[in-house]
């Protein structure tokens, strides 16, 4: 049953990570990000106690809500990209390359790390790859924050497989929440005190 669910959540992560990259509407992107955290929670709970793993899901959902509050209800992504091809096809092909590359390196990575859950390793590498890809093709603040959160989510899965420190988990949660706060700050151009 667990193996089937591993595959189900791999599909969830696959769809969510590619979906948030392709999406042009922030609502969809944040929705996909939320679904992504569900997948992250699933893989982490296979190693950690569920009461600790659930923290990842809850913090992930808080992150999504915090970022959603910073968006104006009528806007899609502001500040359209100018420097890279922005078509769906380009993004989809780039994401497909990441999917194939991570599929190829997931089994040796699992062996190297001594992780029995190869599907989880693939999900982790996939998220890190998509996060890096997004960082490479965007400068739009919300997209950058989502990409960083995706990258960290992927890292959190693989790190949970090898390290079970609750304090590290807590600090990673803090960093996730901090990133969302930073995102909220960066996206709000008013109601902030002038520092400089």
């Amino acid at each position: 049953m667990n193996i089937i669910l591993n595959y189900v959540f791999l599909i969830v992560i696959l769809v969510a990570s590619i979906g948030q990259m392709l999406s042009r509407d922030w609502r969809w992107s944040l929705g996909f990000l939320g679904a992504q955290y569900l997948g992250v929670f699933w893989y982490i709970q296979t190693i950690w106690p569920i009461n600790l793993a659930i923290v990842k899901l809850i913090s992930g959902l808080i992150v999504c809500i915090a970022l959603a509050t910073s968006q104006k209800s009528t806007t899609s992504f502001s500040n359209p990209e100018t420097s890279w091809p922005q078509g769906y096809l380009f993004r989809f092909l780039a994401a497909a390359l990441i999917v194939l590359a991570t599929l190829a390196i997931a089994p040796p990575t699992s062996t190297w790390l001594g992780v029995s859950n190869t599907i989880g390793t693939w999900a982790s590498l996939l998220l890190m790859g998509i996060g890096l890809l997004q960082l490479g093709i965007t400068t739009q603040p919300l997209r950058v924050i989502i990409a960083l959160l995706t990258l960290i989510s992927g890292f959190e899965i693989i790190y949970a497989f090898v390290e079970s420190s609750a304090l590290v988990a807590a600090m990673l949660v803090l960093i996730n929440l901090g990133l969302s706060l930073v995102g909220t700050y960066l996206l709000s151009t008013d109601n902030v005190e002038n520092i400089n």
Partner: protein
Amino acid sequence: MSAPIIWIIIPFVIGFILWLIPNERLVTWLGIGISALFAVSAWILPIETPISLGNWSMKISTTMSILGRNLILSSTDQPLIIFFYLSLCFWFISSSLAGSTNKLIPYGFLILTLLISALAVEPFLYAALLIEIAVLVSVPLLKPAFIPPGRGLMRFLAFQTIAMPFILFSGWLLTGITTGPEELSLISQAAIFLALGFVFLMAIFPFNTWIPLLTEETHPSSVVFILWIFPTIGLLFGLYFLDTFSWIRDSIYLPVILRSSGLLMIVTGGIWAAFQKNFKRMMAYAVIMETGYSLLALSIKGTLGIDLFFGLLVPRTLTLFLWALALAIISKNTSSTQFSKVKGFGRKYPFSATVLILSHLSLAGVPLLAGFPIHQALWEQLGIISLTGAIWYAIASIGLFMGGIRSLAVLVAPSNERFIIKENWPQRIFLSIGILILILLGIFPQWVSPLLSSFPLMFSHLGR
């Protein structure tokens, strides 16, 4: 009472309290006074030695435990604490003279204490997390209100965040090596992850593109603090790894890697500086070169390399903060810091222009200025190891020097305006003191040697 409570927790709490106070003048004075007080306390108070005041006695311990992890500050760390708080105080004074608002001060305390705790935490893998938290805290310092974030800030955030997973992961691999020395196959893997982590963390070429962008986007007073503190802490964190793991320290490849990356940074920085037409970006290239010089110093084996590394710290700090103040004063009165927009500004801002040029030339290693003695020593040592490296070093320094001469030409260019000094008296006095310090440190570098000689003692293997 423990040392981490005094020099990490209390300043951190003070940072929060200052953030809540709306009175700008009060916050400025409190920030300057409190940072100076922490520097003096680190100088006076002994650690692990009983202090008697009449019938009352106390001892400051080295360790503070938080959830099973330790923050450790020993007496060998005190010189560094003095240096950091004195630098913070200097930055507060210069930024208040530059007309920055009071919010720099709480952020300064928060960022500095987080980064000191990154150096003090055991086990060390938590340091990467603390540095990342400091990066997040620094974002409000770097984004001016009402202006959308620029590409430099987004890249800074991205690159610094990418560093964290690499360092955390290498930390996990290094733990495996520590517990089982026979697992030497892990060494190369750990080294790759560690190197990638530090390349991002210290903005080593080619991941330093955010520095010129960020410098152009942000107020000089804000950005200079970030460009000073993060590379410094990153380099010290790297030294900690060298000190702890003998296989890194003794690697035959390490000096070559450090020298190559250092040279690459100073040469690219120098060449870009030579052709630069923007005062803010010029400072950014000098900062990039400074990280390169530090890497070059570390590539020199033995205690000499460490001495050179620490020798660069004081002149760099003074010079960068003075440069930023001068730049802030000049840029406040112009829409852009492009050369074409500030032609002849030396007539209106003679003190700022002088400091700007002297700071620039000091970092280029021009004789009789603060940067000269240590740059000359570094160049000499590099020449002993690699003549080619020394030639590239000279080319890079000439590049930065040319940038300085071009800046001078722009600032003193003929203009229709009359010679009227527009700096206020506090600015004139502080900048004059800055000029004096830059020259005196060039002539009498031994004045800071008592502080510099005690820095390497914080490491058990490198500094002895």
